[in-house]
């Protein structure tokens, strides 16, 4: 599929419908697709399943809880044991207004990778003997127990990269590959927010992190600085 380039984030997300599942890349401040999230907030789409490493105070993702756009969160980091103020999400969670599936971060990453790689499941030692093992098959190999974990996919992935060329090849900066690089492979429609779109040939082939094959929609946005607060 040829990548489509949009001039603003509102247009870039115009294909998203209510009741969709959406993966959001980023790890706190690094690689968060904040412009796309704000467009989603402004759009008001409801009943979303949000798949993201973290949701919390200072996240743009937590803004989506302001008008209860999120019905379910699948995350690794959602409720801080410390800190006085509560996020919108946490308050709604404690009131039973939003569902939470908490996953170990390595399992979360590997499930997304499996979803994009046609892997039907994988065995991980992580979570054996914990609440994470509930309702999961335990498989023993070489005298070691593993949980069978299943792939994770979504209708959409919102990701953020540093630069793109006009065919959707992406490079990331610093620690912002995190979940962006794998989520780009694991959704039916992948929408990328980048700081700069350059001509084809300006990105060195040896340096490309996400090949354009994975990207459907592209928009250049000034990055929004986010920072966790407590």
């Amino acid at each position, binding site marked *: 599929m040829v990548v489509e380039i949009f001039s603003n984030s509102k247009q870039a997300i115009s294909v998203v419908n209510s009741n969709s599942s959406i993966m959001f890349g980023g*790890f*706190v401040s690094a690689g968060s697709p904040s412009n796309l999230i704000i467009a989603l907030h402004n759009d008001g789409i409801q009943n979303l399943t949000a798949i993201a490493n973290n949701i919390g105070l200072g996240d743009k993702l937590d803004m989506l809880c302001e008008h209860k756009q999120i019905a379910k969160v699948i995350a690794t980091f959602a*409720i801080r044991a410390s800190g006085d103020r509560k996020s919108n999400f946490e308050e709604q969670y*404690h009131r039973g207004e939003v569902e939470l599936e908490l996953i170990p*971060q390595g399992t979360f990453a590997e499930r997304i990778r499996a979803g994009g790689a046609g892997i039907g499941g994988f065995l991980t030692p992580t979570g054996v003997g914990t609440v994470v093992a509930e309702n999961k098959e335990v498989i023993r190999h070489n005298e070691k127990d593993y949980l069978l974990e299943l792939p994770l996919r979504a209708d959409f992935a919102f990701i953020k990269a540093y630069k793109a060329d006009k065919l959707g090849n992406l490079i990331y900066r610093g620690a912002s590959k*995190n979940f*962006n690089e794998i989520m780009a492979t694991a959704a039916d429609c992948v929408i990328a927010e980048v700081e700069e779109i350059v001509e084809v040939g300006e990105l060195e082939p040896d340096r490309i992190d996400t090949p354009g094959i994975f990207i459907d929609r592209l928009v250049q946005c000034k*990055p929004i600085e986010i920072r966790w607060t407590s």
Partner: protein
Amino acid sequence: MNQGLSRELIALRASKELHDGMYVNLGIGLPTLVSNFIDDLDITLQSENGILGYGNILEKDFDPDFINAGGQPVEILPEASFFNSAESFAMIRGGHIDVAILGGLQVAANGDLANWFVPERGGGSIGGAMDIAVGAKRLIITMAHTTKDGKPRILDRCLYPLTAETCVDLIITDLAVIEIVDNQLILLETAPGITVDEVLSLTEADMIIGTSIREMSL
């Protein structure tokens, strides 16, 4: 009563477990402080959000792309490399990290760890803790020896939801250094001014006194 070590001194004691050439993951909270005491060591720090080779925590000039797993801005060293989260946890789960230092809420005599969920607060976050606890070659827990109201946190069995089973190798608290070998706690060191009896009285689980028990050197 609690004349034990400050958080900084617990971190200092933990830093003495690290040696040149090691690849080390430091958890959020107290373990982060360990990085203040390793300037003389040739150690490479891994952060599960996708960095190998970061340095000090930077107080100013925030760069959103250069952060550790606690969201704090960090210095990127010349030998640094970056990778995505699947690769990062492949590194962790695959046994490539020599030592991980995590915070703890409760540790059991068999090495079970609970450090992600506080029932009293009605929540918690798993983050990378379960994978790190399972994957690191050696796992060190740094924590206060007791709760704020003086109850033991080193127990016969963890009461809080587990992070991982039988994963802890060493516990460093404000009162003591305790090794776990074959489901058995061994008291190796006491904090300055703390007696063996005090440590035993504040520990629920049975503990062997190490044959060469000594006062911590800090």
